């Protein structure tokens, strides 16, 4: 199992029946593959649909039905079209139960930076600031390190996405919960040791005696 699949499978377990969930483009969108279709979960694509489905059959693609990354998608039975005002009304209004986003950095306060690298990459925040501000739960799904550098750091050096503390960090090495006391290590990825996680982490981790291995969907 590759790093991305570990992350996607672990995040999928957090998604419960009846939730409204927004998955960011890239890695987070893989999470949907591991949520059983009969769990009654509605996925939102913030560009305008509640009830996002899988890729369409070949030849059935329609340019009026895409996800936030512009890729062709389908809609499940019971889907609803929404405009951008309703879409972000749901997000900012607390109606979105969970958002899963990628991250550039997360710090000991649980703050996320994921929209800008000054002088290098200025794509714009898109919907990320609203999602992190408004969603009931925010899960950061990312590789633990980038080119050998720690992404979990004492304080974000990149511009923040929001001042809100995220609820969960899921990486290919670990599951970490930001708390009032700091970052608490809760689970190890299969075959990964606590020392390996510590070595790949720039921030202080709070570690109790027994850290169980992740169960994966």
């Amino acid at each position, binding site marked *: 199992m590759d790093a991305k699949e570990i992350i996607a499978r672990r995040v999928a377990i957090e998604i419960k029946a009846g939730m409204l969930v927004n998955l960011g483009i890239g890695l987070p969108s893989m999470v949907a593959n591991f949520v059983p279709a009969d769990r009654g979960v509605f996925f939102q*694509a*913030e*560009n*305008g*649909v509640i009830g996002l489905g899988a890729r369409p059959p070949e030849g059935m693609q*329609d*340019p*009026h*039905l*895409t*996800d*936030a*990354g*512009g890729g062709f998608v389908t*809609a499940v039975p019971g889907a609803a*079209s*929404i*405009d*951008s*005002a309703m879409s*972000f*009304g749901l*997000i*900012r209004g607390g109606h979105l139960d969970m958002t899963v986003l990628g991250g550039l950095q997360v710090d000991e306060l649980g703050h996320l930076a994921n929209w*800008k690298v000054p002088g290098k990459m*200025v*794509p*714009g*925040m*898109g*919907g*990320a*600031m*609203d999602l992190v*501000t*408004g969603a009931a739960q925010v899960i950061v799904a990312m590789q633990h390190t980038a080119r050998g550098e720690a992404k979990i750091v004492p304080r974000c050096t990149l*511009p*923040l*996405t*929001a*001042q809100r503390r995220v609820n969960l960090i899921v990486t290919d090495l670990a599951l970490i919960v930001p708390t009032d006391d700091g970052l608490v290590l809760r689970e190890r990825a299969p075959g990964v040791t606590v020392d390996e996680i510590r070595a790949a982490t720039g921030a202080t981790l709070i570690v109790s005696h027994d850290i169980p291995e992740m169960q994966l969907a």
Partner: protein
Amino acid sequence: MKTALKPAAVAAMVPDGASLMIGGFMGVGTPERIIDALVARRAEGLTIIANDTAMPGRGIGKLVSAGCVARVITSHIGLNPETQAKMIAGEIEVELVPQGTLVERIRAGGVGLGGILTPTGLGTEVEEGKHVIEVQGCRYLLETPLKADFALISAYQADYAGNLCYMLTAHNFNPVMALAGAIVIAEAESIVPVGVIPPDAVKTPGVLVDHILERAM
């Protein structure tokens, strides 16, 4: 009853230096034929208010590539490297706005509100230079209304009275922008007689629409 205009007539109506709201999300739900006409008449110095600048060769990306654009107010330019390059070269001024804030600012302009208070952007770069107002014990950014000289709208169906309806994820910013342009021009895939779109299916009442683009044949 509305006037049906040819693309060149629409382009001639939009002066250089005008501000345009243009519907669409990564090119989905964007009035492509109106954009082609603006490119053909070599429009200059436009201010574009839109969710994103799509990608080169598509939607607003065509205006960027053709050098028609002086300024963009948008949430995301990440999929259009030309916008980024022109921004860095100082050829295009880019104001980045969180997506949910952008749509609410446009709505505020359209429905006569003097502004809205949002938690999105608090504690980030977006807060810089903005008023922070406390309501019921929480802090919010005061975000101001946006209007434009023109709103260029993409719809699924228009009737002769200008009533519009939209399809799936091609709604996005279109219904809100139709409220906020001084002159509203709609490009629809079908133009149908009055009565074909039932009252409950109308998303943009015809009273908001000034002109309809002739249908592509």
